């Protein structure tokens, strides 16, 4: 990990005393390969352990629901730690195979924002399907959504797109 990000991650985990409360209340934990308190522990241990976490499913499956952070007796901001680890995992291309569709979703979503300034659902769904080769998922819902006027066919492009683009470039 880069030094700066490593020290930022560490600043989040130093206070954890491994009580396990975060894992006890995490609804997503059944889908995770490492429990939330283990993620914290591995970051505390550093080195090869961090590498394991960057390749884990857990960081991507975390829903960012803020429950663990709200309950943690040591105010460890676990969802934000997960965000930082995801950002890192994505930059270093260490993504867990089962998490690829989650990243594909985020990328498709943000691509729309980069192009139009707002999310464009139809484009998002299309791009997501192409990225994941998952052409048939939810196809049955589509006609009903169109009928109910829930799908816009044209993206709404904002006027000041340049400002948004600058943010994308800088990052």
């Amino acid at each position, binding site marked *: 990990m880069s030094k700066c990000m490593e020290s930022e991650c560490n600043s989040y985990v130093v206070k954890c005393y491994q009580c396990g409360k975060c894992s006890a209340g995490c609804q997503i934990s059944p889908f995770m390969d490492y429990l939330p308190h283990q993620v914290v522990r591995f970051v505390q241990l550093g080195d090869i352990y961090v590498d394991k976490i960057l390749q884990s499913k857990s960081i991507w499956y975390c829903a960012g629901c803020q429950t663990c952070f709200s309950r943690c007796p040591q105010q460890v901001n676990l969802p934000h730690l997960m965000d930082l680890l995801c950002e890192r995992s994505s930059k270093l291309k260490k993504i867990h195979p089962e998490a690829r*569709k989650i990243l594909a979703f985020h990328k498709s979503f943000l691509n729309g924002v980069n192009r139009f*300034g*707002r999310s464009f659902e139809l484009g998002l769904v299309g791009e997501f399907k192409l990225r994941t080769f998952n052409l048939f998922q939810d196809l049955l819902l589509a006609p009903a959504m169109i009928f109910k006027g829930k799908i816009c066919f044209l993206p709404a492009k904002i006027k000041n797109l340049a400002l948004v683009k600058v943010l994308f470039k800088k990052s």
Partner: protein
Amino acid sequence: MVVKDKKALAYFPGCSLHSTANDFSKSIKLLMEILEIELKEIEDWCCCGASSAHRINQHLANGLVKLNIDQCKKMGLDTIFAPCAACFNRFKVVVSELGDTTKIVSLPDLISKHLEEIKIKQKLKLNMKIACYYGCLLNKPHSIFKQDCENPMTMEQSLTELGMESIEWPFKTECCGASFSLSNPEVVYQLTGEILRKAQQRGAEIIVTSCPLCHVNLDMRQKEIIKRNNDITEIPVLYLSELIAICVGIPIDKLKIDAHFIQVSKTFEEKFTVCHG
């Protein structure tokens, strides 16, 4: 006390209300008109980045929200109304990180603030057992919201004041799986299934929410969930603004409730009775 000096609110509809949640957006517009609350849509607003931006790019996530806050300031407004719980949460977090003074209000907050006025205008009340569902983003994290994030009561209190009955249940702030709706529906089926089941076990006949992402999972994905769990039966999911709108006399057919996937029953209208006093 009726809130007198009504200042206009900067309105941040967000991407959902602009497309998939057009039903939510309609009910908000009609309700605000009746309550004479002026909404000024943030000019040329951009997406707040939702859960995607902060997952893979912190700098972008905060920057997108900041653009909207700047825009709001340019319009000379100091309060942003963000009906989508996900946008609301992003704004709250960024404002707190920046130490900005702009106030951010959610739909349940707004309803509760204008309750006296709603009471005066109230014509009907719903006679069904209501489960108020907050989801994860309206009250968490605790460090920022400083309110009871395990058992929030804002919606229940408003509904009680309006003479309606809500159930007590432990799943009101559980996560519905939110952004996994597209990328990993299995997670949603599981989490949302638990929420629907618990609401029904506690006797709820209808669920009320104020988050368009939760609505997608609770409503659009419901039939699929029922197929997988034979102990769950159909239950309509209304937006809080839709329910209040009907209560203050907006005809049901003016709202877009028929755009929901789970239709309210044919006798739904009969479940409302006239309020006196």
